[in-house]
């Protein structure tokens, strides 16, 4: 992160995000409570009660499914829209997520990442958003409250771009980031106004110019609609980096675009991760480097669109790659990052071993010691030339 221009305030992560949303001037917000995103909805509700959201319609809907459905109607009418959710709520939205993306409605939503039931867990992992990988939404992952807040206007700018017109979810880890109090530079309305142009879509529901939204497509045309969504994602891929740069110019803060690197140039062991564990990993890298271990980090900010070329480039000199996943594909015993990174290296000349570790599921803490242990294992494996298949890093064998 580059230097901060603005004054820092100690606030809760959820407040920082809600405040960022306010500066983006949403026209319609749909809210339904689910832990751990409730504080975002509550803060926005208070802003609304205090008359700080302008003409915004704040709708307390009867379910997450209706939250997103309400925004589908609102976005098609030309409104800038916002929702936040998590876990079961995101799962309940599943059907509507496809629909919003297919209708090219640039809705922006914050996902306070949380585990899925059963067993019931209100705590953090990233299974919820990873399970929505293929719904056609842009997925951005934030490392800390500041990044989650700053990603908000960036997400609108990317999503509402006429060549993109694709909804976006900003994923940030539940409790760990939503409920943490730390110094944050709150976004300034004037700067967001300068950065983010008003929403001005080409097609809207308007009696003056009647158009049909959501026609049905027979086999002669369905594929082409889906392909056009892919083209929208490709445009997003091109725009995420420049939008991050524009944000830096106006706000003076930068976190990388599609991805970010930390001590990667000469790294033999490269860890790949997303979300709040990035901070812990950076600390551990500093520590093991003092012991002579050349470790580095590749942080994925944009999981969809997946930055294939940038990832290949970033990993080309790695001796071993270690993926850290707060999710699992049960039946494959592998997290999504592991699968994606392995796939990214295929069809290249690289034959770098990839070791997948799953950890921090259902809110289990990820202390530096675990990261250190993982790095040590990877170092040994690299030296011995042993292949390690993906596994849990923090499994308690005695309970299994």
């Amino acid at each position, binding site marked *: 992160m580059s230097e901060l221009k603005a004054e820092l305030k100690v606030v809760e992560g959820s407040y920082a995000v809600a405040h960022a949303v306010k500066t983006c001037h949403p026209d319609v917000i749909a809210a339904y409570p689910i832990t751990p995103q409730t504080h975002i909805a509550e803060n926005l509700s208070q802003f609304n009660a205090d008359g700080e959201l302008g*003409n915004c319609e704040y*709708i307390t809907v009867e379910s997450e499914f*209706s939250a997103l459905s309400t925004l*589908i109607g609102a976005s098609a009418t030309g409104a800038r829209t916002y929702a936040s959710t998590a876990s079961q709520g995101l799962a309940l939205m599943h059907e*509507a997520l496809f629909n919003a993306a297919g209708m090219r409605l640039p809705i922006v939503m914050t996902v306070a990442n949380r585990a899925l039931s059963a067993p019931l867990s209100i705590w953090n992992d990233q299974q919820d958003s990873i399970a929505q990988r293929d719904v056609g939404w842009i997925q951005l992952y934030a490392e800390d409250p500041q990044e989650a807040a700053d990603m908000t206007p960036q997400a609108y700018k990317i999503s509402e771009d006429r060549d993109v017109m694709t909804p976006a979810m900003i994923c940030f880890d539940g409790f760990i980031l939503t409920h943490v109090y730390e110094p944050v530079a709150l976004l300034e309305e004037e700067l967001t106004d300068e950065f983010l142009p008003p929403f001005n879509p080409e*097609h809207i529901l308007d009696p003056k110019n009647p158009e049909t939204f959501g*026609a049905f497509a027979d086999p002669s045309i369905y594929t082409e609609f889906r392909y056009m969504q892919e083209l929208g994602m490709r445009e997003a891929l091109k725009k995420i980096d420049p939008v991050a740069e524009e944000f830096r110019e106006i706000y003076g803060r930068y976190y990388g675009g599609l991805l970010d690197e930390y001590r990667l140039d000469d790294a033999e062991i490269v860890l790949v991760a997303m979300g709040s564990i990035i901070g812990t990993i950076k600390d551990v890298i500093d520590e093991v480097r003092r012991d002579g271990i050349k470790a580095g980090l590749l942080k994925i900010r944009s999981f969809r669109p997946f930055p294939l070329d940038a990832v290949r480039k970033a990993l080309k000199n790695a001796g071993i790659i270690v993926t850290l996943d707060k999710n699992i594909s049960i039946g494959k015993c592998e997290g999504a990052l592991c699968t994606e990174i392995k796939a990214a290296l295929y069809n290249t000349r690289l034959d770098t071993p990839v070791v997948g570790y799953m950890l921090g599921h259902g809110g289990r803490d990820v202390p530096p010691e675990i990261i250190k242990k993982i790095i040590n294992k990877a170092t040994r494996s690299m030296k011995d030339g042993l292949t390690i298949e993906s596994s849990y890093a923090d499994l308690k064998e005695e309970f299994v």
Partner: protein
Amino acid sequence: MNQRSPKTQPLFAPGHRGCAGCCNAMAVKFILRAIGSDCIVATPTGCTEVFSTPYPESAWNVPWIHSLFDNIAAVSSGIESALKALGREGETKVVTIAGDGATVDIGLQALSGAFERGHNITYICIDNEAYMNTGVQRSSGTPYAASTTTSPPGKRSIGNPLGKKNVPEIMVAHGSPYVATTSVAYPKDVMRKVKKAVETRGPTYVHIQAPCTTGWGFDTHLTVEIGKLAVKTGLWPLLEITNGEITGVHRIRKKLPVEEYLRRQRRYRHLFTTPEGEEVIRELQEIADRNAEHYELEL
């Protein structure tokens, strides 16, 4: 997925893929004639959506959106909220036109939410009393004893074992300022009630019974006749409920026996060919008689 339509055509243009004698196409035509062009229409998945918008064609000369099967009341509330937030509210009516499955079954939660929140929308259910789009499966709008592909008569079945869910009453219980029932067989009644609904502020509800030629099993020229028989037997009362009070009842000059209605439809044929049928017809007659008494249907 947006298509432009010429403005010179009628609001619901001919050339759509509706069946001959389609009750939904009739209903939509009457609805739009009553409302005019200053509206936004939302329609869930179902017959109407499918036969009116095969890409790249669209029969709609008003702004129209289809999202999903189960969310259309929420979509409509979003449209209404957006118009308000953007200062485009004006005279534009937000109208939902949905089938019975999307209304009384899978979309009922969203409908309840939208009415509870008091959005200024008119929700119109075109009720053909089963899932016609998927091949005539029963919905909770299917009347007692009707045969559908998931409530077939048999050794242990007299057809649909359950009665019709009374959704208009449920909408009254939500505090809707205007709820009405009507039938495609009475175009003037449909248009008058739809007009009143869109002109009443708040969430209003119109439930249109719509006889389906393929699903109910009658000749394509009989849609109106069958619809009239449902009303004249007392099985489908035409009502207006304003602020919770019954303010309008369509009176019947001479109430007909239910057999006259049942006999004309394939979905009730088993009642006339099985020994249990006689008893079931008696039960259906009781329903009609109760309606007549409760709503004072007879002149």
